[in-house]
Structure formats: structure tokens, C-alpha cells
């Protein structure tokens, strides 16, 4: 049972990370910066609970706010670049954040121990959960509550004008501008929201792995962040969840019995999925079909 709950935790945090990229992808911006925002959220939240004894929720919110603020600042220069240039710029941002934490020392003495981030050694003993008696079940429920809240917010936004505006910018910027949409406001807001969500994911990550270091927040993680919404389909938040279940549940854990072949299948299956379902696992047509099915049941 513990194992499945642990797996749920991992899927929750990764869904959160995927959702942070989902928001930004809707405006047509391919951002590999989510890992950087996640790092910021992770370190801030961990420092607050470990060094300053803050309660968990407050620390997580603080981490998300700082990450969101950073995303806002990154969003403005990001406006000037498109396509590949944006990809490279966001890669550079993630690397800068990672290298910053590589050089970041902030330790205070706690009795005979020194706690806090120590550059390349990382930040150990983030034991808020075990020290406060949270079981795997508690943590899993907590993580998924956060994820569910974020998903609900995004789903609600999708069905409101804000969602339409985001997608309009993603589809065709010039047409959107012609309708009077303020491109700057939309893109920066999306980036900020994505950053805050990623920061929240980072805070959760720090607490359930109990140890974070710069090598956790790499370009590869950022690539996974955009992989989830792209593989799952950008038409709905459920696509991201589906992709996380596919990758973390099926590919990583489910295929364990294949031993060595699992890793080879990983890349191969991603290529396959993108070839047979280029708009993602749950693309617009599938979602429409599902909606029809569910609405028919009511009659």
C-alpha cells in the first residue's frame, strides 16, 4: 500500500510540474524554464520550514510566490523571442538557476549540526513530513489536494474567457492582437501562473524527497515538464494527468518487469505515441467524444 501511495505522491508532483508547463504552452510559448521555477520554490519552501520553522502551507505559498514573481520578471524579456530562441533562452534560465544554487551556501547552526543549503552538497534533512508524523497516506492526500485545486482552477479557467484568450494567443498572435487582446499581459500572466505552479511543485518535491540539490533541477526535468502536456494533449488539463500516469505509472513502474528493456522502450514509446497521436493522448477530438459519452449517460 505504501508503495502505491508513494507512487501517487510522485505522480502528483509531476502532474503539478506538467500543469505549470501546460499553462505556458497554451499561449504558444515552449518554455524549458519550469525546472528553474521549481528549484526556486523548492529551496525557498525548504529553507522556510527547516531554517525558520514556518508551517508547511505558508512555506509552500511563499515558495510559489517567489517563483511566480521570478517568472513574471522572466516573462517580459521572453516576449521578445519566439520559437527556438525562446527554448534556448529558457534553457539558459534553468541553467543559471541551477548554477546559482550550486554556488549557494546558507547554513545555520542547529545544536551541533549545521543545516541549510550547502552549494554542491545540497540541502539535506528536510524532514517536515516524518518529524510531524505525516504518513505516506497523509502526504499523498495533501499533494493531490494541492494538485486538484490547481487542476480545478485551470479547468475553470479553460471554460472561461481567460482560457479562450490564452488559446487565442497560442493559435495566432496576430489575429488575437487584432481582436484587441493585450499580448504582453496574456503571455506574462501565463508565464507567472506557470512559475507559481512550478514553485508549488518544487516545495512539495523538496519535502517528500527530504534532500534537494542542484543536480535535481536540470534541463532534462524541464523537458519532462513540457513532455507531460504535449504527450497528454493540450486541449484539457486531464491530458497532463493522463500523460503523467502513462509515463510514471506505466513506463517507469509498470514496465519494470522488462528489466533493461524498460529504458529502451521509454524513448521508443514516446516516439511512437507522437507518431500515432500527434496532438497528444487526449486530444481535442477524444475529449469531445468523452464529453459526449458522459453527457449521454445522464439521459
Amino acid at each position, binding site marked *: 500500500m505504501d508503495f502505491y501511495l508513494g507512487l501517487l505522491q510522485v505522480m502528483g508532483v509531476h502532474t503539478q510540474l506538467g500543469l505549470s508547463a501546460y499553462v505556458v504552452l497554451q499561449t504558444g510559448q515552449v518554455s524549458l524554464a519550469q525546472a528553474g521555477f521549481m528549484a526556486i520554490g523548492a529551496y525557498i519552501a525548504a529553507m522556510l520550514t527547516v531554517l525558520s520553522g514556518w508551517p508547511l502551507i505558508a512555506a509552500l505559498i511563499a515558495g510559489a510566490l517567489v517563483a511566480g514573481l521570478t517568472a513574471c520578471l522572466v516573462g517580459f524579456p521572453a516576449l521578445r523571442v519566439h520559437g527556438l530562441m525562446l527554448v534556448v533562452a529558457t534553457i539558459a534560465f534553468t541553467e543559471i538557476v541551477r548554477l546559482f544554487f550550486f554556488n549557494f551556501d546558507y547554513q545555520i547552526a542547529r545544536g551541533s549540526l549545521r543545516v541549510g543549503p550547502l552549494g554542491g552538497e545540497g540541502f539535506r534533512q528536510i524532514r517536515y513530513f*516524518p*518529524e510531524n508524523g505525516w504518513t505516506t497516506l497523509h502526504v499523498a492526500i495533501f499533494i493531490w489536494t494541492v494538485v486538484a485545486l490547481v487542476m480545478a482552477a485551470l479547468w475553470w479557467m479553460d471554460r472561461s474567457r481567460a482560457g479562450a484568450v490564452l488559446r487565442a494567443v497560442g493559435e495566432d498572435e496576430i489575429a488575437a492582437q487584432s481582436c484587441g487582446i493585450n499580448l504582453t499581459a496574456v503571455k506574462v500572466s501565463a508565464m507567472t501562473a506557470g512559475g507559481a505552479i512550478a514553485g508549488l511543485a518544487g516545495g512539495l518535491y523538496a519535502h517528500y524527497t*527530504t*534532500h534537494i*540539490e542542484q543536480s535535481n533541477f536540470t534541463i532534462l526535468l524541464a523537458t519532462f515538464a513540457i513532455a507531460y502536456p504535449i504527450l497528454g494533449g493540450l486541449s484539457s488539463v486531464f491530458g497532463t494527468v493522463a500523460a503523467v500516469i502513462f509515463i510514471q505509472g506505466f513506463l517507469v513502474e509498470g514496465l519494470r518487469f522488462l528489466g533493461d528493456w524498460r529504458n529502451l522502450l521509454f524513448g521508443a514509446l514516446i516516439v511512437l505515441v507522437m507518431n500515432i497521436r500527434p496532438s497528444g493522448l487526449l486530444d481535442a477530438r477524444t475529449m469531445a467524444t468523452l464529453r459526449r459519452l458522459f453527457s449521454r449517460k445522464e439521459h
Partner: protein
Amino acid sequence: MTIPRLLAASAFVTTMAISSAMPAAAQEREIRLSGFGAMSGVVRSFGINSKAALEAAADEINKSGGVKLGDGTKGKIVIDYFDDRCNAEEGISVTRRIASTSSLVGIGPTCSNVAEPLFGVLQKKVGDAGDSGLQFPIFTDVAIKGGLAKISEWAFRNVPDEGAMYAALFQWLKKTRPELKTIFGGVEEDFAHSRATWYAVMKEVAAKEGFEIKGEAKWLLADTNFTNQAREARRAAADIVAISAHPFTTCGMLKELGRQGVKPKLVIGLTSSSSLETLQGCAAEAEAIIIPTSFAPVTPEARAAADRAAKFNGSLDLHSGAAYEIVAILKDVIEGEGVLAKPDTVQADRAKIRNGLSKLTETKGLIGISKRTEEGEAVKPFLFVHAKGGKWEVLHNPTK
């Protein structure tokens, strides 16, 4: 299917299941030990070798009569091995998976960046009811970053104590090579193990033995351009160059030193680099490098173990050798603590094994007796090897 039929069918199935399980209890009982480590990425060879070592050791014990359990029955060891891909989240997930089976101990991980988070997830102090950490014993074979076992009372390691090894090396050099007086370091900065070994071990110990530290050159673990660093080494013109880095950058630095014509009188390497990888990468440039290690086929046990591991498609080195030793240590602990290995005694057995491991003061290793510390670490016997003609040969064996 109607309800009565369903009930009848499930009753039938259940009876069959129970009856087929019962005869199994009369056979040898299974002692499940689960290894986990990196089977992917640049550290893939570590996982392969550890797995082979575990299987070889288990096979040997099973062939010579198995393990004596607490109620007098015999148990045979079953090994499974999981790939954690050197990833913290996956390592924790794998450990939870292992803990949900009948496995009694987790043997691993390979990577220190998995070990540290994993130990943090374990219960810190045994018996602390307010600590909801995982209660599952982990016995590490490879992850070598200093001071990790003290993170939790459920964590134990069988990894070499580099402080003692390099201290002995420098003392021996002082005695046998008195012409060597100065030392220059090369450090892989972004890997906790290599970084700590230069600053906290090599540098301190060399200074204590009276060597003059001329400085150090730094690089990152994926670097490929060592022109600056080799030039710094050239300027320092030290007798000894000590490279605290893994095979990829060790080879890169050695090649650049060769290109720039820097010929120190002696090159010393990092313990983990005394493996096949370094020789695959740069056998020519690594010629005569001296590295302290905790495994070489210098005793009959070591040689036999190496042969057995080869039959399971792995090679024995200081890392997988530790895994081999762990199985033997666990056999002793299981027998000593009266572990029952019954399906309903799993958690009790795990606690017994943990207790047994924490009580150990010394264990029998493949090349000699290892001492065990209160923190759950090991102080293993070691020897010095050097690269000669593309192979690692024993240079000096202090245990003799």
C-alpha cells in the same frame, strides 16, 4: 453469472490457493533480499556488477546449505534487483516497492544522490512513534558520500573509509618514496564524493604527513576542456598530482597533462576510479596511477568470489565486492538474530536484522576483517593498486 455461482467459484479458487500455498511452507523458506541501484546511464556498470555479486553470493550460500532460521528450518536466499536510474524519486519509490514485498533488507543504492534522500525518508530513530519515516533496513554497497549512515538508524553501509585509506597511502609514500614532497590536486567540483575526498580527505591527510600542497585545479564532471587546469598543474610543478574525479574527467585531465608535457613523478586517483572504466577510457595515460581500494583478488576468498561473480556476468571491484560481502554479513545476522522468514513475521524480521546490524563491531570481508562503527559505517581493509599494462595490479598490501 449469478451470485450463488460467483460465491461458489470464489470459494473454490480460494481453497485451491490456500491448499497450494500450504505445501510450500513445508519446503525451504525464502529469504528475500532486494538489491537496487543504477542500471542506466553512465553508472550502469555499477548496477550490473552489484546484481551479479549479490546473485553469486546468494548462490554460493544456497549451495552450501542455505541459512539457518530461528526455528531450525533452512532458508534459501532469493535476490531481486531493481533499477533506480540514479534518480532520487525513483530510488524512494523502488524502496517503498521493496518494502511492500516480503523482502527483508534493501541492498543499495549506487548513487549518493539517491542514498541521501532515501535515508532521509527512513525513520530517524528506532522506536520513535512520532516519526512516520519508513522502517526498513537499507545496507548500502556503493554510495560513498561521507557521513550518510548517521542520517537514520535503519541505514547501514559497507563502503570504504577514505580517510583511513589515504592516510595510510600518504604515510607509505613518505616512507617508500621520500623524494616526493609536493602535491597538486585536481577536483571534480560538482560531485559530492570527489569534492569531499580532495578537500576533506586527501588535502588534509597529505598536509598532516608533511606534504606541501601546491594548490588545486577544478572542473565539472562533464567537462572536456582541461587546458587551463593542466597549465595550472604545469606551473605548480608538483611531485604528486592527486586527481579526485571519476573516470571520464580523470582520463580527460590525464590526456591533457600528456599533451602539455606535464609529467608528475606520481599520480594518485580516486577510489571509485580503480575500476575497469578508467582502463577502458585511457589505459595508456593512466599507466602507473596509484589508487587505494578495498578489493583486489589477493585472497582465496576474493579470487573465488570474483570467479563466481563472473559466472553471473559481472565483475568484482571495490563496489560490487562490498555487495558480495553484504550477503555474507546478512547471513550471519539472520542466523544470529533468529530471523524466521515467515510471511507473517516480515516486519519483525526486518527489526531483528536492523538490531543485529547495529550490534556488529566487525565483519568478515573478502580481503580481511572490517570494523563497523556506531554510526553504521564500515572501516574496511584496503590495499594499493596501480595500473600496469591496462590492468589493475596490487602494489602494496598493508593488511599483510
